[in-house]
């Protein structure tokens, strides 16, 4: 299975800009299916970015983050070719993680 996580991390001088898109339903629990039953909430709760052994960004998400969620942030000190680790855990305890090279 391909990773659920897509990352673009680009270093420009001392600042690295990181954009991430994750394949996830982000079901809010407030939507009904075709049969009128509520689709249970299923959403990423925490998304963590680590570089060089330190956390550079932590996203805590609720049910209002869009399907296939996206987030952009930037941090100082990232080097081209350095490893950025991205991982998430959702409310059902499912997880995924990936490591990408900063470009």
């Amino acid at each position, binding site marked *: 299975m391909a990773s659920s996580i897509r990352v673009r991390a680009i270093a420009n001088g001392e600042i690295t800009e990181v954009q991430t898109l994750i394949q996830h339903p982000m079901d809010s629990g407030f939507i009904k299916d075709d049969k009128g039953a509520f689709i249970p909430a299923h959403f990423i709760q925490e998304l963590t970015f680590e570089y060089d052994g330190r956390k550079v960004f932590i996203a805590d998400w609720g*049910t*209002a983050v*869009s399907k296939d969620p*996206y*987030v*952009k942030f930037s941090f100082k000190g990232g080097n081209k070719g350095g490893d950025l680790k991205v*991982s998430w855990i959702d409310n059902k305890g499912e*997880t995924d993680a990936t490591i990408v090279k900063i470009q």
Partner: protein
Amino acid sequence: MTTSHNGLPPTRRLILKGAGSVALAGLGIVSFRPLAASAANDTYPEDAFRQREANEAIKLLYGRTAEPSDKVKLDAPEIAENGAVVPISVATTLTDVTSVSFLVPENPNVLAAYYKIPPGSMPNVANRLKMARTSNVIVIVEAGGKLYSATKEVKVTVGGCGG
């Protein structure tokens, strides 16, 4: 399947977290403000995410109130092209920012996202949020231990006629 990011299976991680706080509370070490998270605190603010009132969510998240500030620039559309995916971002000239949160008071759960900004990371964040209906969007920037906010109304035209 990959493992959880701290190497523990997720259920175990949650149990440990719960057990830890009970134990510490029992020893009387922790004053009862476990929900007033800061960037150093890694817990998921579950209760804040369940709130239906913006003030309640903010109180649970930070334990204090925010002041509007023109140093917080909230960018959101006038009219959301679709409430399912509304691009919203914040930028600020404030220094020592430790967290950023987005709230949508008209959503069933008002707190949408809470971002912890460790030292060395920039206080500029863009994300895409769901909006159930026309609402203010509130962004709160926590900087130097104080809270600053900006608010903008986003119109959401819901498709269909309700029937």
